[in-house]
């Protein structure tokens, strides 16, 4: 046991391990970038669409079904498929397949939660808003969205966790995948690389848990006052009990 731990410690203290080309810092940044960019795109695409459709009460079936369909598609498979298509197009595999696959992965929970959030705003609140003289878009963005904020943010969090969990898998496609590269490479090399495998996993775990925590903090800051926050365990699986 102690032999193993010292191997791991050795791995961490190797020169260039932290800041080199293949180092922990640049890989962490890559990991975060590969997670954040798809999230931004997914939110920009899914949120306004979901919220608008929900306000108009359209596409109800599709809105609820999308998260179930999304869940059935294995993220790993999606990533590799994206890799295949981009490879045929001759594009750099370090970036595009991951981003495209991750956006596709992130959209369903964001969409379904945002839709549900708007649809479950108490009708009296919406009617009062209209009755007082808010225009339709003011009702949506000034009243429905803030009131639905906890559920919307819960959906984004689900996607965030999912995306963070899939980024390491991109390492299978190329030399990317952020911190996942250590693990995938390690597995390919066999038992000898066990220190690298473990160290990589540790870093991934810490990064992911930290990013989730960061989201929690940000969520609290963003949530409008007076609207209660969903308990954190409930967050993980709010995306529709079909």
């Amino acid at each position: 046991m102690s032999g193993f731990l010292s191997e791991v410690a050795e791995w961490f203290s190797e020169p260039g391990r932290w800041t080199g080309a293949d180092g922990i810092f640049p890989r962490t940044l890559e990991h975060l970038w590969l997670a954040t960019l798809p999230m931004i795109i997914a939110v920009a695409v899914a949120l306004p669409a979901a919220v608008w459709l929900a306000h108009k009460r359209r596409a109800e079936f599709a809105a609820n079904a999308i998260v179930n369909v999304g869940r059935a598609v294995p993220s790993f498979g999606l990533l590799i498929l994206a890799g295949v298509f981009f490879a045929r197009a001759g594009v750099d595999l370090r970036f595009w397949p991951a981003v495209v696959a991750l956006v596709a992965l992130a959209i369903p929970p964001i969409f379904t939660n945002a839709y549900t959030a708007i649809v479950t705003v108490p009708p009296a609140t919406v009617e009062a808003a209209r009755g007082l003289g808010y225009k339709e878009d003011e009702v949506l963005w000034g009243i429905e969205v803030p009131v639905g904020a906890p559920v919307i943010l819960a959906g984004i969090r689900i996607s965030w966790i999912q995306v963070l969990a899939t980024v390491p898998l991109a390492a299978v496609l190329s030399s990317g995948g952020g911190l996942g590269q250590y693990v995938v490479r390690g597995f390919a090399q066999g038992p000898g690389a066990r220190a690298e495998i473990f160290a990589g996993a540790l870093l991934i775990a810490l990064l992911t848990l930290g990013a989730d925590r960061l989201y929690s903090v940000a969520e609290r800051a963003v949530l409008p006052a007076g609207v209660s926050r969903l308990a954190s365990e409930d967050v993980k699986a709010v995306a529709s009990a079909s």
Partner: protein
Amino acid sequence: MTLAQQTVPLFDWGWVGRNLDTIWDRTLEHLSLTGAALLVGMAISVALAALSLWRPSTYQPIAGAAGIIYTIPSLAVFALIAPFVGIGTATGRFIIAQVALIGYTLLILIRNIVTGIRSVPPETREAALGMGYRDRERLVRIEFPLALPVIIAGLRIATVTVVGLVTVTSLLGLGGLGFFILDGLRRSVIFPTEIIVGVILSVALAAVLDLSLLVLGRALTPWVRRGAAR
């Protein structure tokens, strides 16, 4: 890994025809990995949920721990356990895969079981008490059936997710249908057919299992739909 040549067809039906038995084997492997994980996961979750219901103060730490396992990417979970169990043996690989898969189901199942039982209306509970049901009887015969819809919803989510996660175990040498995904990628010239077969079949498998659970759920809870139909 080299870039795919344009000459490799996107989908080769011939390959499918030639490898039907491998596909079947891998599908069975996929099913067994999924089934094992869900069975054990359900057993553990029921136990932990019962504990949380009996001693409410334990719910937070239990859900918290399950949440941590859920958040950590499955790949990392494999890698954290692998050095200790060893990826050299088939058993070792199986255990590593199962630990991660089971761990992943815990949060959803525990949360849904607890929420399901807690959402049984207090009046119903009281009526049962008033009629003479003892605590354990009441739990099994009244509360559990009433909590079924929520529990099954959680089970469906867990099942579909596990089916997806099993594909990642291909990195450990298992993978079920995920084997094709990785194999198609790892060839000297990327072979899309395998990858596509792997993805489509695992989606199909997830859909079939999801539907089956839906039907099972409806069969077990006839009161739900009849009430709504009125």
